[in-house]
């Protein structure tokens, strides 16, 4: 069914479509009456975002081993063709991806190729702003794309959710400008190093007895204080339960973060968005070893995450997406590293993700000033997640013309 027809159907059969959604989504009535369906999302489904901070080298992640231009551009850091995990006649993955090959074979690992946007920005800070806000290069939209999407949606499911989002990694979040894709609108975003740490900090944060004039600044502060009191109770209950899986996670930073995420998702904590970070991808010098370690940490943690959630029978309800401020230049530099570039591939992983390649690998013979030309706009992935993963029918991108990536999720 094509998208337009589906949209028409949703409008025509508004109430029927809503009835198919979970109870907490359908129980809330639009305050403005039933005529216009208020956008909602399927809260049983989680999105796990993993930021590869620093700009991941896409060409050494998904490797065009058959293209002679690849080896030519990278005399010292190209992955030799015999070491590439070949997935077809042209493309393969970095050897660090071995633990995720089962997911590829089960067709649960999707790789979106050549992800970027027009007039790419090569500043870390501006680059990640663009990705976080889901805006065009020349646009200064500061609110995060998920904040815009979730704003007003989650309040309707308030009681059933632990929080709108959880961000793991305190310093990494605040030091780099707030909540990233979740910044802007006032969401119930829990930022923590670990649930245990959050619970310890929040201890004694009792729900305030004071009342304040509705809408006043004091009322806002007291409301947030109440949120802390209510979430900490639920979180500590979940945290004390034994994990609903036996899979062990790697003892890496990301392994620990994804382990906690898995435990809370398996316990149905009720959090639509999880945001995690793995730092260190700004590989300007002596890239090879460091990059292999970083990909190893990522892949090891993801393989465990998949195993744990399959075990807990929650794998169909999770979608993982990686993102990064930019890819890196095609030619290696004089320090056996790579400098800031443009488009790069990104991973989608989950029980309902359509495995295999999505989009088109950028052509190494058609470069723009030595950089890859993007073939998929990153906002198309956002659109797919909104529409096809969450069933969201509202508008959250400033560019309404951005279409979803066809078939990124299985129905």
């Amino acid at each position, binding site marked *: 069914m094509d998208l337009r027809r589906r949209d028409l159907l949703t409008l025509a059969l508004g109430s029927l479509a809503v009835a198919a959604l979970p109870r907490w989504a359908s129980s809330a009535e639009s305050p403005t009456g039933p005529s216009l369906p208020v956008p909602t999302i399927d809260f049983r489904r989680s999105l796990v975002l993993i930021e590869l901070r620093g700009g991941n080298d896409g060409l050494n992640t998904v490797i065009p081993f058959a293209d002679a231009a690849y080896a030519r551009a990278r005399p010292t850091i190209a992955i030799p063709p015999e070491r590439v995990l070949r997935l077809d006649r042209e493309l393969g993955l970095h050897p660090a991806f071995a633990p995720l090959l089962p997911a590829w074979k089960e067709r649960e690992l999707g790789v979106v190729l050549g992800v970027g946007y027009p007039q790419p920005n090569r*500043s870390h*800070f*501006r680059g990640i*702003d663009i990705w976080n806000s889901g805006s065009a290069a*020349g646009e*200064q939209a*500061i609110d995060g794309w998920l904040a815009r999407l979730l704003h007003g949606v989650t309040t309707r499911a308030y009681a059933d959710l632990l*929080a709108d989002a959880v961000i793991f990694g*305190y*310093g990494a979040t*605040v*030091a*780099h*400008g*707030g909540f990233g894709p979740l*910044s*802007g609108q*006032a969401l*119930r*975003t*829990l*930022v*923590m190093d670990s649930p245990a740490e959050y619970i310890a*900090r*929040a201890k004694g*944060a009792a729900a*305030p007895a*004071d009342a304040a004039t509705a809408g*006043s*600044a*004091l009322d*806002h*502060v*007291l409301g*947030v*204080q109440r*949120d*802390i009191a209510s*979430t900490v109770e639920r979180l500590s209950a979940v945290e004390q339960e034994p994990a609903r899986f036996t899979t062990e996670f790697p003892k890496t930073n990301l392994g620990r973060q994804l382990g906690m995420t898995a435990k809370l998702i398996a316990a149905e904590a009720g959090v639509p968005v999880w945001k995690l970070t793995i730092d260190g991808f700004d590989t300007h010098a002596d890239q090879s070893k460091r990059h292999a370690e970083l990909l190893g940490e990522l892949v090891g943690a993801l393989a465990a995450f998949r195993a744990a959630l399959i075990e807990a029978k929650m794998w169909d309800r999770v979608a993982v997406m990686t993102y990064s401020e930019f890819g890196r230049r095609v030619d290696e530099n004089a320090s056996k590293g790579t400098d800031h570039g443009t488009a790069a591939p990104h991973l989608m992983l989950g029980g309902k993700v359509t495995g295999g390649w999505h989009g088109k690998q950028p052509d190494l013979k058609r470069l723009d000033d030595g950089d890859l030309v993007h073939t998929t706009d990153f906002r198309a992935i956002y659109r797919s997640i909104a529409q096809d993963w969450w069933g969201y029918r509202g508008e959250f991108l400033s560019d309404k013309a951005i279409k979803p990536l066809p078939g990124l999720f299985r129905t």
Partner: protein
Amino acid sequence: MRALIVLGIVLASPLLALDEGEARHLLARTGFGPTPVAVAALVPLSREQAVDAILATATTVPTLVAPDWCADPFPTYVKARKADWDAAYAMAQGEPRKKREDELRKRDEDRGWDLKRWWWQELCATRSPLTERMVLFWHNHFTSQLSVVGDPRLMWEQNQLLRRHALGSFAYLALAIPFDPAMHRYLDSDSNVAAHPNENFAREVMELFTVGEGNYSEKDIKEAARAFTGYKLGESGVPELDGNQHDGGRKVVLGNRGVFDAKGIIEILLLREKNVALNVCTRLWREFVSETPDEKAVFAVSAAFYRARYQIPAALRALLASDAFWDPANRGELIKSPVELMVGAVRQLDQVVGDPIALVDAGKRLGQDLFDPPNVKGWKGGRAWISTHSLLARRDALEAVLSGKVTAASKHHLFTPRPMGTPAQPMVAALTTPTPWLTAATAAGDRALIVRMLLPRSGVDSGTDVRKAVADALRDPSFNLK
């Protein structure tokens, strides 16, 4: 004190005099937390006189001496730094060269920390809280990020520029901005050359710094970007025009046609006085009055601003004379920024900060890392300061102030205060000289006074123990408000 009272009687008729709550409100909104001495100084005055008294404290000179690496004249510093890097690059590839480059990078990193410490300590020690509030305001208007700019000295120079004009002329400040080395780097002006114009600076100048969104077209940005081409950081370290890389052709910007350079474009923008003034005054309103600007009232303030040819005190006078500012319903209705929260607590508790590293750290954790705003739009501010995690972090940070951990780090000033005499005007002296008050209030058993000074709203306090008054007030949710 006696002179003050006499002054008060002479200046103000009792009918127009402020009450304690009003004086407290004015001090809380224009500084970092009121103290009884400052409140007493303002109480006999009328609103207008009180505002003038606070404006009279304005200064362009910081209270503390500069970090030692800022002591040399800027061009000397720039030359020395360049020589260091040139020497490193001249070394053969290998371990010693790598080590030297790491040392130089580490030096910048250390100086970045030094810079942040300096400003936090200046905020705690300042004789003119209003000046610091305005430097913070302009830092959030003409933003640059140390993490992008790289060289901490450039951010220091920018801070001095903002300081010189903080309560002076907005027009002079705006005209200086294209020539500010930190801004030049921050908004990619160095790569803006005639052959490949980069629109970054042109766009922010219009959207954020001057006329504001909706008051220009994409074509205006493209044309203005051409005028900004070819400015290069020269030997002296400041942007200078390189004729070969500058587009000297005709441009059409906002309907003006001519061979404009950077200064010419800023002048054209400043001529759109209604737009510029409205943009700046709406931000000032959010900073000083309320999060929901009253369109008509802001319009009046902006008219006063542009009629005074962009004199910043004129805007503040109009703003602080507005009914909305004094409306009791607006009292305690703004959220303190992390800087206001921490500096306010330190100052109100009579603490002297030696090494402010704990404050730099708290700022980072609470989301306001000075010299490193999150992006070109600066900190969003207001209610966005409060989230589940920041509220917990605020509580922890205030506990650290209470337990003396913030001041415990050192016993001496990291940066020495400049020698300063007592100001000739008694009113200025009362508003600028730090006067410890807590010990006396505690000894007198005056819990009510302590709570009234620390909290913006009455009726929250239910305790009785005077020794716990400070802790109770700092733990009160309304300590987050001003």
